Every structure is written in structure tokens, then in C-alpha cells.
């Protein structure tokens, strides 16, 4: 009896072992599959060839044949995975299949997203740390008696996106106009003339406004609007014998506004209105002169190109 009891215990133990072994192997296979998927995902995120292998793996599981896996670069290891999967319980197989389908959908969605979404840099134009060489011309819009045209040049250092400092200069071509001659002819009066000759300024620009515009949907052009403040010297035709220092030029200052249109990445087109002010020394006395100029300038960025910190 004692012997029979021993034998029966052995038989029960052996039977339990036979029943339990496949489910334990199935659990081991599932955990192995999970680890392979997670390592592949890491490879995909880092952009290595492992990402391609993962995609092929996904196609293989979706297609469900070893041939697909081989066609997509699958190896004997992948075929072995298929064999391992065949030993799983139906429930584990369904769970594994759902997980893989979910992962495939996620990968497909990301791929579609990458195709359809274009990432723009936050700033189209980087001004900070670059210089802008400017040349252009302007015309006086405020003087009723004198017609003045200026040849302008300047160099700006853009400290950052908003602030710039620099120097500007102009050379004037000024002459009296019809109204001036009418006063001489019609009234017998001879106004004292003050013709601008040249000037130089140190200036500061502040750009509070950035924007873009389009024309009939042809293209989108970036721009920024800026305020101008400057101090410097202006030379006129009115002689001053009393103070030799003023012969070089009278102290002058200016304020203005401008619109900088960013055409190509290396070129700008700026439209400006400036009010240049100075105190002129006429024979009748000193007088504040305001010279309003509207101008157009072409700017060349130095360096002409730039790189984003994070390229797209």
C-alpha cells in the first residue's frame, strides 16, 4: 500500500509536469517577443537601419507568411519567431497579434504624418549676429522750395532679432524748384537758401513688428517694420564763419520708420521715411529745419547665408 501510494504520487506529479510545461514555455515566448519589439522601437527612434527591420517585421506579421518576411529582408531568426509563435496558446496569439497590429498602425500613422506635415522653422529669417550693407536713394518730401535727392549708404549690425546699430551717410543733390523761382519772379523776394550737401549718422533700429504678405497668392514674402533713431552731422550751403567746428557739419538728429522686405535670403528691400532735423543758422536767425525724406534701399546680408541650430 505504501508502495502504491508512492507510485500514485509520482504519476500525479509527472502528469502535472506534462500539463504545466507548455504554458510556461508560452509565457517565455511572449516575454521574448516583447523584448524584441521594444529593442526594435528604440532602433526606429534613433533612425538606424534597425527601424527598417522593424517595419519589415511588421509587414511580415501582418501578412502572416514566412515568404513575406524573407522578401522584406527577414532572416532565419524571424522564421524561428514564427515557429515560436505557433507554439503559443490561442489567447496569447490573439494578444500578440493585437499588440503587433497596434504597433503597425502607430508606425504607419507616424510615416503618414512625416509625409504630410512639413516642419517650419520658427524664424524664417535670422538677423541676430549678421550685418546688413545698404545702398539706395531718397527724395525730399517736405521742402516746398528746394528739391533734394540723396544717395544713401549704410552698414547695420543686427545685435539680435529686434535691435540693430550702425552708421549711415548720404550725399545730396539739391536745387531750387519752380516755387522758389516763382517767389523771386512774382514777388521780388529772394529767400535765403539752405541746400543740403551731405551728412553722416550713427543710428539705432528697433523692430517691433514682423510679418508676411502675399500678392494674389503668388508668393509669401517676409518682412519686418522698424523704428529709426539717429544722431550725427549734416552739412549745408549756409556758411558759418563764427564757429569753425560747425563748418564740418551741424549737429543733427533723425527719427523714422521703415519696412524691410526680405526678398531672397541674402537681399532685402527697405522702404523708409526719415525726418532729419537740424538747426540752421540763417542771417535772420536760427531756425529748426525738418527735412522729410522717403527712400528705398537695397540691403545685402553679411554673411549672405545662415544655418539653423536644428536643421529640419
Amino acid at each position, binding site marked *: 500500500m505504501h508502495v502504491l501510494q508512492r507510485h500514485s504520487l509520482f504519476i500525479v506529479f509527472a502528469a502535472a509536469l506534462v500539463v504545466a510545461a507548455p504554458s510556461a514555455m508560452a509565457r517565455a515566448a511572449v516575454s521574448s517577443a516583447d523584448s524584441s519589439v521594444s529593442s526594435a522601437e528604440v532602433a526606429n527612434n534613433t533612425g538606424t537601419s534597425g527601424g527598417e527591420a522593424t517595419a519589415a517585421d511588421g509587414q511580415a506579421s501582418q501578412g502572416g507568411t514566412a515568404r513575406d518576411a524573407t522578401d522584406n529582408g527577414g532572416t532565419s531568426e524571424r522564421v524561428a519567431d514564427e515557429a515560436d509563435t505557433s507554439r503559443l496558446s490561442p489567447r496569447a496569439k490573439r494578444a500578440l497579434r493585437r499588440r503587433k497590429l497596434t504597433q503597425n498602425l502607430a508606425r504607419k500613422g507616424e510615416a503618414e504624418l512625416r509625409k504630410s506635415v512639413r516642419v517650419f522653422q520658427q524664424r524664417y529669417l535670422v538677423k541676430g549676429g549678421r550685418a546688413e550693407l545698404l545702398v539706395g536713394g531718397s527724395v525730399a518730401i517736405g521742402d516746398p522750395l528746394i528739391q533734394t535727392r540723396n544717395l544713401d549708404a549704410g552698414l547695420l549690425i543686427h545685435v539680435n532679432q529686434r535691435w540693430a546699430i550702425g552708421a549711415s551717410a548720404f550725399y545730396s543733390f539739391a536745387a531750387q524748384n519752380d516755387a522758389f523761382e*516763382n517767389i523771386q519772379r512774382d514777388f521780388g523776394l529772394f529767400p535765403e537758401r539752405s541746400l543740403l550737401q551731405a551728412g553722416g549718422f550713427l543710428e539705432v533700429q528697433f523692430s517691433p*513688428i514682423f510679418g508676411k504678405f502675399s*500678392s494674389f497668392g503668388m508668393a509669401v514674402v517676409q518682412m519686418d517694420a522698424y523704428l529709426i533713431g539717429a544722431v550725427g552731422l549734416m552739412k549745408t550751403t549756409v556758411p558759418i564763419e563764427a564757429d569753425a567746428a560747425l563748418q564740418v557739419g551741424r549737429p543733427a538728429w533723425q527719427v523714422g520708420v521703415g519696412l524691410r522686405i526680405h526678398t531672397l535670403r541674402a537681399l532685402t528691400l527697405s522702404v523708409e521715411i526719415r525726418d532729419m532735423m537740424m538747426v540752421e543758422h540763417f542771417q535772420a536767425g536760427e531756425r529748426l529745419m525738418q527735412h522729410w525724406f522717403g527712400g528705398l534701399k537695397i540691403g545685402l546680408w553679411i554673411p549672405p547665408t545662415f544655418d539653423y541650430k536644428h536643421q529640419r
Partner: protein
Amino acid sequence: MMFSLARQPRPALIVRLAVVCGLIGATLLTAGSAHAEDDVLAGSPVLRRNLQYRAGRHEVTAIVGFTVGDPYIRTILPGARYDLHLFDWLSVGGRLQFGVPVQSDTYAEIDKKVTTQNETFVMEATSLRFLGLGHVSVSPLVGKMLAFSRLPIQFDVHVDLLGGLASVASTGDALTTGIGLSLGAAVGLRVFISDIIAITTDLQAISTDRALSVNRDSKESGKKLRFNNILSFGVAFFMPPKLQRAD
């Protein structure tokens, strides 16, 4: 005797404006290459589903203008402007402005100095009394801006072709006055501070046939076709308040 703020009429203003518009147009044409990249958006429209601030709306603007270039009498021109925007880029309308003359320093100085030589001299000069002009307006440039990194602003630049009647007044009896045909052009900026309110500024050049002043013999002198430059500022109200969206 120098006068810095008064301005001389210049017939070439429209030519200058045309040159500026041409340069901006050339800029737009060349700008496309700056954006050309081989991506999924290649060949797709530059603008899609954008809000149209003008299309199908009525615009009423309260304006005040100032003549730029009258050496003897500057004119302040309050008035109103109406636009029916047929499309986002095209409108038709008209404006009415009434002139309030303000004598310049030059006027007073000439009156004073010439009278010392000729006691019978009385200074006279002409000014704009009334403007009634129709216009066709095209908005070739439409865009948006961000002020101080937080305030979004929509804007457009428009060009107007003007035609109508202009009345000329005088400070005396020696100069020819009356109503005449007036043609001109204008360029302006419209900045939307909300969906229904915009701030506008325009520079217009309109023609009138007039003499600026008498001569020292108190006779009319130099009557001819002149362009009068007017700088206007205004507040515009748009109806209906709901904006359309482009395709």
C-alpha cells in the same frame, strides 16, 4: 526765409509710386525661389483657407486729409469714404472731403514783405474747397503682422484710381475759382485692429487746374494743371462683421 514743412506739388509722384510698386512686384516674383524646396507642399497653393477681411463687405471710413505741397495755403480735408468690396482684392466706391484752409508762414511773410514795397498789394492764394471723387481700388498686397510678439495685425496695401470733381477756393477775388474735373491716383495702407475696424492711411495725388497765388501786381499768375498731394488718415468700419474664408 526757409520753410521746411510746406511741400511742393510734384507731377512725378505717380511715376515714383509706380516705380516702387514695380520693385515690390519684382520682389514678389523673385521671392518664390527663396521658398522652393522639394517637399510635399511643392506645387500646392501658397495660401489656403485664409480669412478674407474685405471680400463681400461694405467699408465706411471717416477720414481727415492734409495737403502736402501747397506753399501758401495748407488745406485740412475732413470727410468720408465708402467702399464696396466686390472681391478681397477689388473694391469700388467714392469719397467726399471738404477743405478747411490754413495759411502757411510763407503766405504771411510774403503778404507782409511785399506790402512794404507795394501798399496796394493783397496776398491771395487758392486752396481745395471740396472733393467728390469716385474710385476703383485694388489691393495687390495682403498680409499679416505680429507686433511685440503678441498682437496679430492684418493689413493690406491698396492702390486707387480716382476720378470726379474738385472745387477750388481763393482767399480773394483776383484768382479763378470753381469746380473742375479731377483725376488722380492714391496708394494706401489699411491695418485691421479687429474684424470690423481698421486704421487707414492714404497718399493721393489729384489734379486741379488752378493758380497758386497772385503776383506782386495782384494779378493771377501761373494757372495750370497741378497735382495736389493729400495725406489722409482714417478709421474704417466693415460690415457685415462675419469674415469669409477662402477655398
